[in-house]
């Protein structure tokens, strides 16, 4: 029965879309901390304002696909990551309302900008912590979560949290490099270099830690030596490219390279945990809902997802080019 594989692929695709698209949104949010002038911060937020909502919808899509097609896994993972998920949701909430509320303020807009940036940091960090917690392993007994709610705050998850936050800064700087005006261009270049260095080094330490705490990961390395080596090599090449960005680099390239880093990271994780959905515990097939539910989701996806991709691309197309100095509605 290949239905669970298909629905899992869709859920994974939704997650990839989310990480890539909301990654730069969150990154831009975090980078608000590093600009003291109001005009720059306005410009940065303007660059993501028209499309952030669609980007975030991919997170709901990924979560709900898990709920629909793999309710057993969903019911284990949500309690297992209870605290980081709720903190992430609160972070996303603070960020989301700041979009609307900050433009209502003229004088104290700075406050909402900090709320915005804090929300972005929390959300990014918690997403990394969830990935780290997954790699470290979730305690399951009788198809229910049996660990502690603080399991997601062990050293490996914390390292992964830092890595993802730094990685999102790379994406955010790549986005600004593509979308912002001249003034922020040099800022974007500087951040691209610094954030890439930090991301790669934290990521490297996290990888070492993961191999240490979870024997199944070393086993996966042993059995999938070739694909994992290729992924790692490509990762290093892209990181070097990103670290050497200058103002003359073509506008889209840093964003694409940053996206490439994330895709490679995700590919590596997939190679390590497949065919499990809860790493090293439960396979896709063990956690799947009955085929009636899988089919319903897949038919819905097949009919609607292409249309979604078309108009979502159109929404990006409408707001193409560099962000106007006074925002999009001028």
């Amino acid at each position: 029965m290949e239905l669970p594989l298909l629905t899992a692929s869709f859920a994974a695709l939704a997650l990839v879309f989310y990480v890539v698209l909301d990654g730069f949104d969150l990154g831009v949010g975090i980078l608000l901390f590093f600009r003291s002038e109001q005009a720059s911060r306005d410009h940065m937020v303007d660059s993501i304002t028209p499309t952030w909502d669609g980007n975030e919808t991919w997170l709901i899509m990924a979560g709900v696909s898990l709920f629909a097609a793999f309710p057993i896994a969903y019911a284990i993972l949500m309690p297992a990551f209870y605290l980081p998920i709720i903190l992430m949701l609160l972070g996303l909430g603070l960020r989301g309302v700041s979009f609307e509320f900050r433009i209502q303020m003229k004088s104290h807009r700075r406050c909402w900008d900090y709320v915005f940036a804090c929300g972005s940091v929390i959300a990014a960090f918690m997403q990394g912590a969830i990935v780290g917690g997954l790699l470290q392993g979730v305690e399951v007994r009788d198809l229910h979560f049996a660990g502690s709610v603080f399991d997601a705050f062990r050293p490996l998850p914390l390292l992964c949290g830092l890595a993802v936050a730094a990685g999102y800064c790379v994406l955010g700087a790549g986005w600004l490099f593509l979308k912002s005006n001249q003034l922020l261009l040099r800022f974007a270049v500087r951040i691209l270099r610094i954030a890439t260095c930090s991301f790669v080094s934290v990521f490297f330490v996290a990888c070492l830690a993961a191999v240490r705490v979870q024997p199944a990961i070393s086993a996966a390395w042993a059995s999938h030596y070739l694909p994992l080596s290729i992924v790692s090599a490509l990762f290093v090449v892209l990181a070097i490219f990103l670290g050497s960005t200058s103002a003359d680099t073509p506008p889209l390239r840093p964003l694409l390279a940053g996206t490439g880093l994330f895709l490679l990271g995700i590919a590596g994780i997939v190679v390590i945990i497949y065919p499990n959905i809860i790493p090293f515990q439960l396979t896709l097939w063990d956690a799947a809902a009955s085929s009636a539910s899988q089919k319903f989701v897949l038919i819905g996806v097949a009919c609607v997802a292409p249309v979604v991709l078309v108009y979502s691309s159109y929404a990006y197309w409408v707001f193409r080019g560099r962000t106007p100095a006074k925002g999009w509605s001028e």
Partner: protein
Amino acid sequence: MIIAPEIVARTQFAFTVSFHIIFPTISIGLASFLAIVEGLWLKTKDQIFLQIYKFWLSIFAMAFGVGVVTGIVLSFEFGLGFAKFAQMAGPAIGPMIALEVLTSFFLEAGFLGIMLFGLNRVGPRLHYLATCMVALGTLMSASWILSANSWMQTPDGVQVQGGRVVVINWLHVIVNPSWLYRLPHMLMAAYLTASFLVAGVGAWYLLRGKHLQFARKTVAMGTAFATILIVVQVFLGDILYGTMLKYQPSKMQAAEGFWDKESQSPAPYYWIIVPDQENQRNKVAVGMPWLGSIWLTHSLNGRVEGLSNTPRDQQPLMGMVFYAFRIMYGIAILMFAVGIATIWHRLRGTLFTSRPFLHVLVWMSPCGVIATLAGWYVAETGRQPWVIYGILRTADAVSPVPGRAFLATLIGFVCAYTMFMAAFLYFALRIVRRGPTEISIHAEASGSLKNALRPHVIDNPELARR
């Protein structure tokens, strides 16, 4: 201290979902209103409609934003707080919510940016399409989520195998017995909410003698919509009442405040009771004689069923259901009275000048929100002790998370949401106080229609502005 996870998990879900539903109710109603107003603008080219559009768009944007971020929470909360519910019902509820995300969340999100910021970039016609798509998205979203919730109220089309739901017939799951009545009931509630908001703000300006043209238009539109909608709503409510009496008698028994298997004849209509669930009786019961028989049984001496028809371990708490129902019903009566007053003032030509009537409109502006919340409390507290009626008890659905963790996050939600609400009210009231003339009008109606059909002008702001 030991904190019972069940109580805190339920409180947390109740708090987050109650807070959330306020904003979709407003945005479902306002989205359709905005689509109507923009359509009128394109048709008549009357600038006043563009002004109304811009004004309510700014409030819509904030309500939508808060609705989105509080809604994301819910899609994870099924599993966070109620993992055993998620595990059991995921195969039926999950796919419906997945389709909701696919068919409506993306539609809303994709076109919202264009709706809010794209008028100059795409031209009025495509912009109107974007507004309509956002409105359509809100309607489809309501449809799916009502389907999912109605399935929990009146589950159908499934078998329970090994503690898990297996779908036998999707049509029966989606078009379950109560969905067909509950969906229009909720949509009317959202439209009534928006109508009273729009009319209330207009009335406030009329009372102050400000923005008169804007105010007259919106009071006229708001009261006209409200008058038609409340008639439809009372009719729909009555049908839904009958449906729920058939499928979930315990809810309606609790809503009417009678305990005995059959009430006295003729039955009164209670307005105030002090229920004593322990002894299955009311300590105090105040009502209007005869009216219970007339309203509830549509006869002069009919008897009303009491809650003791339901076994004690399957009874909801009467007080919650009763008072939630009274609040909803009471507001419906007030709305009906406003509808009659509207017709009266229309016929006499005093719709914009009768100060008492305008004061009533101002005070009634939040009533749609309150009635909708109360209605959801009837639906959700009346279904207890079940989370899926007759299949899974709420107490058996709670996640293996310690009560302290639930409490900590509940406090987090209360703090964050209080800030959201305070900011929303502050900014929305400030927009209202400043008035519609403060909102800049970017596009001109005349002449620019053609630009929408010539894509190259979008790249050229000079041309597009012409």
